[in-house]
């Protein structure tokens, strides 16, 4: 089971604040305050906002978790389109024709024939 997709925001938030998954709310608060002193909003607004978001997520009473669970988009990476797939690749039509032959071939007709020498090699 892969929980990474939905846990990712929490893992990022903990990494940003430097706390473990077992950290108590007071430990999270202490870590947040310490970092906010290092990155005050007037000198480092971007970092401060990131810290604020992380802190709010880790001390959230359910609203943020609900947003994560009810997000109407998949939280996992999209599937990759293979460049070597069946579509628009070298020889794809040949293979499709071959499959068609395989599905409609009449072996009796092919075998009921006069033996001859080997087929012409290109």
């Amino acid at each position, binding site marked *: *089971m892969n*929980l990474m*997709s939905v846990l990712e925001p929490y893992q990022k938030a903990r990494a940003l604040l430097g706390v473990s998954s077992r950290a108590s709310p007071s430990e999270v608060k202490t870590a947040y305050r310490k970092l906010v002193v290092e990155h005050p909003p007037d000198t480092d607004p971007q970092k401060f906002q990131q810290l604020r978001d992380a802190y709010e997520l880790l001390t959230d009473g359910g609203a943020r978790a609900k947003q994560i669970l009810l997000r109407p988009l998949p939280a996992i990476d999209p599937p990759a389109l*293979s460049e070597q797939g069946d579509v628009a690749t070298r020889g794809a039509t040949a293979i*499709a*024709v071959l499959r068609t032959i395989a599905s409609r071939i009449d072996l009796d007709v092919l075998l009921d024939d006069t033996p001859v020498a080997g087929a012409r090699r290109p």
Partner: protein
Amino acid sequence: VDILRQAASGAAPKTPSEPCATGVLALHAVASAAACATRGDVNGAVGWARGVPGPLRSMLLADEMETAVILAEETLSPEATARAAAMQSARAWSWATVRKAFVAELIDKAPDLGRNIARHYGMVDQIELHTMLQQLRKASAGKASLESPSPHARLNVQGALDFVRRFGAELFRDADRPTALLYEAFACIGKDRRKAARLLDRALAKGADLIEALRARLLLAMSGTGLMCPDCGFTHGHSAKEAAAAADHLAHALRRDPEAAPLAITAFILAAEGWLEAGFGSKARASILEARARAQALPAFGSRLDVLEAVAIMEGEPNRARALVEAVLEREPTSAEAWKVLILLADREGAQERADALVLEAAAATNDLSLREEARAIREERDAARSDEQEPEIGAPDGVARSHNLAALSEDPSAPIMRVVLRKAGVPAAVVNALSDERLMAYAAELNSLMDGAPRGSAEMKRRVFALLDRLFEESWKEAGKRLPKPRQPGSSAAPKRTGAARSIHGKG
């Protein structure tokens, strides 16, 4: 047939031992042609295809095979283009897989010809698909030249959703198909519920991400009729049970990882809300218990769980429910949902005055819109009552207006008192004054008979009175309102109505 299967993977078939049937040799030639084409050896493939004896060429689609392998050339010669165009009438064209592969390959090599043929046969999707794939390949190649080489074309989340919605998940490799099916299911939520459910089943059977699949199931259940409650996220009605079950399932999957505790608790809360909505109190309490067990280290969830539990036990244990929400309000005086439960408890006990007082108090303590609307309506109602007491033309007995006791009206049904009643129901004074005394007396008699048998001050009596007042409001307009300007529409800002929204934990009436 084994020979053909090997050839499809690019393996050259074994040369048949001589002597053998012409048919077997022809089959070997076709298989060799396909194997060469698969490996990219176009000349070899064409040579093998041309070696098929005449009588068997049609049966083994040798001409089609030859055309197909010529398509693999980097640039199409005029001869190949002509053959490709002529293939439209070949027998192989009747096979959908051949047609799609042919058009795809032709668009790659001779875009104009390929698009013309596709358009001619109504294969517009194929044109769009291959245009998109070409763009992706180009983007992927560009990215690969800048970063590490990648064999795959990457889509972003929205791009992948659009892609699978349009072309389905079958275009993806086997390894990526479970995720592609999951994406297709997400794309169908809210549009085609049955298809989304089928896709989720397939995705799970193929080993797709369990949490994402369960999350999609929950979204699917909640999208029930396509309208989610903005407060709780559930579609109120028959799908609440389905959504509760899906949320429960998701919660049980999430609870296995301690790191996911906030998400597991939230899923249990969603489940409990759904069970309550569907009328399964015991299941709701079980979900609340599960959530509480995980919320010990997360005190932020405490108040939400207390309020939810209060709702769950409101019927059987109102005192305990009240104690729970009062404790929440001690900690968080701005908790609108705790106030609403407290108001609801007072309402259920028939303590209307206390419920109204709580609404006013809650509106002052919180920013909740429904509470503020309700409080405004109560204040306006009280102001109207006070002004009625001061209106000499109405002639209402002081005691009636001051006490607000509508039951007292039944003891003295008279035209002046009915004027007071209609004014309280929101009928403008001009309309009331235009009604005849006979009409007012008839209304009073009806009001009197309606209130018979219902205990005074009870919720039932109030319900009857207000139902009658609604009707009288309409009728009085019909009789007297034709000569007057149009009334304000219900819900206009100047005439707020008591909706009872604040008496619902979901903010709905």
